């Protein structure tokens, strides 16, 4: 199960990105996961919770948005849903000069958080 490695990579990248922006508690991370990315969203959600503990992402919600795999034939210009298991030779002309239009994504789309309220003035103890 490499989802834990994936989750740790997500947390690491999000932390690095949001710290300079001043986030103190990330609320939500949106992830695009292609059909052919080889990642199981449920396993990732489980790992994500653990990976977030003790970081600025603690308690953050992970939203995984599936991306369907689509392919295009360079010979006849046909496009089709690759499906699962994928069909990556052209169903029209049988050609193999095919490119994948989508389906391998494993990408952090965006991160959101609520700005912390301004801290109350500190009371210096005397």
């Amino acid at each position, binding site marked *: 199960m490499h989802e834990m490695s994936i989750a740790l990579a997500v947390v690491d990248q999000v932390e690095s990105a949001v710290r300079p922006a001043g986030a103190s508690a990330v609320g939500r991370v949106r992830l695009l996961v292609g059909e052919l990315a*080889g990642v199981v969203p449920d396993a990732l959600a489980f790992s994500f919770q653990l990976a977030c503990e003790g970081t600025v992402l603690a308690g953050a919600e992970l939203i995984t948005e599936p991306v369907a795999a689509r392919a295009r034939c360079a010979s006849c210009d046909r496009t089709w849903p690759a499906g699962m298991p994928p069909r990556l030779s052209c169903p029209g002309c049988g050609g193999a000069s095919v490119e994948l239009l989508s389906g391998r994504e494993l990408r952090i789309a965006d991160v959101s958080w609520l700005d912390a309220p301004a801290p109350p003035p500190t009371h210096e103890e005397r």
Partner: protein
Amino acid sequence: MCRVLDLQQAVLAKNDACAHTLREELAARGTAVVNLLSSPGSGKTALLERELTLARERGVPVAALTADLATENDAVRLARSGVPVKQVLTDGLCHLEAEMLGGHLDGWLPTGTRLLFVENVGNLVCPASYDLGETLRVVLASVTEGEDKPLKYPTAFGLAHLVLVTKTDIAAAVEFDEVAFRANVERVNPGAEVVRTSVRGGEGVGTLLERALAARDDGPAHIPVMTRQSHHLHDDPEDRIGERGTVGSSRS
């Protein structure tokens, strides 16, 4: 106030960057990496031992690194070939990553090595996602595993430059349907070469070594469709670094 930071970062960007650097560093030293993936028990070690022995006999400088969760059994077997071999124990991790591999090569990989064979952890799921800086990715499947293996593990088979069928000496006994297997590979990876091998039956001797040497000199002969992903979804992180200011610094 709710704030949203548009990242659009590839999750595996760090591994991909490490792999890219490793590939370039090794190429500068004349070494190409061959990444071998398969299920446990499909015969990676036996086939690799044969090809390493052949390389030594032919005077081709090669080395091998084998990864397992536990035991040094595979390194002991591969070392019988007489070439430099290193065992990596992953302590339970189900795959190798580029940074780990690079760390294990420091101070070990002999100068002048032309091919470094990496026997990945036996697993057709997790290792498929990690580029190790290889020039050639080879996926093996034994005749006992069933013709539909390429359909069950489309990412692994779909990203292979070369597919090897192993244990063909017992193909008839287990009623392996080679035509169906080839059709299934073609479905997920059109144009990929599928070669029959058998260590016990002496079939396909030297194929792995020859394909690896050819790829080292001229690059892989086959580029899988799955690696030809269109960049229309602003997938290329390199292009977007400038747009994201501070975010760009998080990539390493």
